[in-house]
């Protein structure tokens, strides 16, 4: 009973945090892009436009949901679900704070403490491509089709780099369990310092996996209208939208856990978090969120700095640069960790 209640509480906290962040991320993005371009950004709805996401959500919900006559109905409806669900599943294995003491029991702040945590992440981020491919195929029109094809090629290529870039971390932590990886970083140094190359490759691959600029080829608006979601409207489009931002947050959280030490602060160790009791857990959660948010800001910052890659450049970067680099990184880590 207690376990179920604890799991439910964790699920509610983490999914709501993610969804609210996914809702407010477009606002952050619009504001930051406005500052970069010497504009003001949303400032009409509420103070500093803070109610804009709510207004947008209502707009999306009440728009007419058009299903064109030429689509494959089953896949067309299924695709938006596939765009959202994998990202939310990945959340299950991300630890988001130090253990909490509830009714004399210690509860780890991770929904599912899997021994193969990181493999679970890759399994589900691999599923995310189906949302886009289904959308591209089911729409039965040329731009979504092109977007879908691009997405599949891009995401499959970068998944390999993504997977190989974190091998160095397992070699250091000697575990695939997320909590062990965080603990190893709290005890030692953050992986971004011990694995800088791994971090760089992971960050680049994360941009490609979430279809963010400079790798937003599946939805490149200047080339493909809107790519895979051209034919979507109303709540189905919102699901793609939310899925993209949820995926961004999930990858930011993954970077935090894998490379930025999770909820670790440089001047604190596990004991000092434990000494603060549940306030320590709250502080840890806040630190985790701030770190993730920093990476989310990096997404936005990069988006308004770099132009989009050409498709051959994207493939060259993935297969000819990042893949060999990731392999070299594993070799170097192996040699450095020789007993």
């Amino acid at each position, binding site marked *: 009973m207690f376990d179920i209640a604890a799991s439910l509480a964790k699920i509610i906290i983490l999914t709501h945090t993610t969804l609210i962040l996914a809702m407010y991320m477009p606002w952050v993005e619009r504001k930051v892009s406005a*500052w970069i371009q*010497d504009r003001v950004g949303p400032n009409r709805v509420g103070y500093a436009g803070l109610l804009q996401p709510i207004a947008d959500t209502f707009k999306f919900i009440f728009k007419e949901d058009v299903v064109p006559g030429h689509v494959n109905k089953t896949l067309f409806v299924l695709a938006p679900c596939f765009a959202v669900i994998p990202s939310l599943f990945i959340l299950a294995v991300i630890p988001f704070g130090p253990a909490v003491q509830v009714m004399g029991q210690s509860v780890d702040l991770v929904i599912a403490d899997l021994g193969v945590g990181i493999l679970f992440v890759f399994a589900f981020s691999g599923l995310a491509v189906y949302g886009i491919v289904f959308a591209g195929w089911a729409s039965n029109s040329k731009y979504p089709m092109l977007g879908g094809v691009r997405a599949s090629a891009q995401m499959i290529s970068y998944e390999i780099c993504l997977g190989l870039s974190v091998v160095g971390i397992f070699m250091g932590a000697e575990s695939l369990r997320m909590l062990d990886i965080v603990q190893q970083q709290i005890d030692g140094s953050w992986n971004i310092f011990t694995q800088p190359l791994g971090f760089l490759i992971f960050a680049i691959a994360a941009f490609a996996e979430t279809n963010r600029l400079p790798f937003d080829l599946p939805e490149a608006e200047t080339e493909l209208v809107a790519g895979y979601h051209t034919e979507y409207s109303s709540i189905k489009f919102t699901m793609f939208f939310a899925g993209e931002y949820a995926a961004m947050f999930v990858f930011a959280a993954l970077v935090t856990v894998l490379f930025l030490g999770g909820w670790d602060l440089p001047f604190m160790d596990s004991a000092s978090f434990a000494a603060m009791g549940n306030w320590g857990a709250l502080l840890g959660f806040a630190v985790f969120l701030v770190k993730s948010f920093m990476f989310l800001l990096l997404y936005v910052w990069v988006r308004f*700095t770099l132009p989009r890659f050409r498709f051959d450049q994207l493939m060259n970067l993935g297969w000819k640069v990042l893949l060999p680099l990731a392999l070299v990184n594993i070799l170097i880590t192996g040699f450095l960790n020789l007993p």
Partner: protein
Amino acid sequence: MAKVVERRKLNFWEELYLPAIVDGLGRTFRQMFKPEITLQYPEQRPVIADDYRGAPGLVKDEEGREKCVSCQLCEYICPPKAIVIEPGEVSEETSYDYSGIEKAPQEFYIDMLRCIYCGYCEEICPEQAIFMTGEYELNASTRQELVFDKARLYKLGGTRPGLLKKWKHKDDGLAAEEH
């Protein structure tokens, strides 16, 4: 002959692109703290130049007389045919001591949806009676509302002091001849 552009061989750091990307990120970062140049439109208004070509309006002189003598030159020159004038005689009560004037517009319509703001009407007007105003916010819920009648056009143009008053001078001349 095609001109061959020699491509400089990139050195290691340039080929890596990372320094360039970091440089670019620095530039956008600095840009974030520069003041915004956006005009908050409904509250802040742009400065309208004196010769701004907004909606055309009819003007009155400082004595409150309408200057238009309904010669219909503007109606004739108007490229999109936005102007329609119903000419008529000067009525008793508006009859001026400017003895030379015989005509005045009974009605004067400008369809602001047709107007292209070319300013030909202002240029051709022999009486300096029609001017392009600084008005640029033309909106309505029906097309008919944007066909401005004489009253609205005079409201738009207002009065302009210091304009040519050739009928007054002619009047003076006539008076001098009579004496």
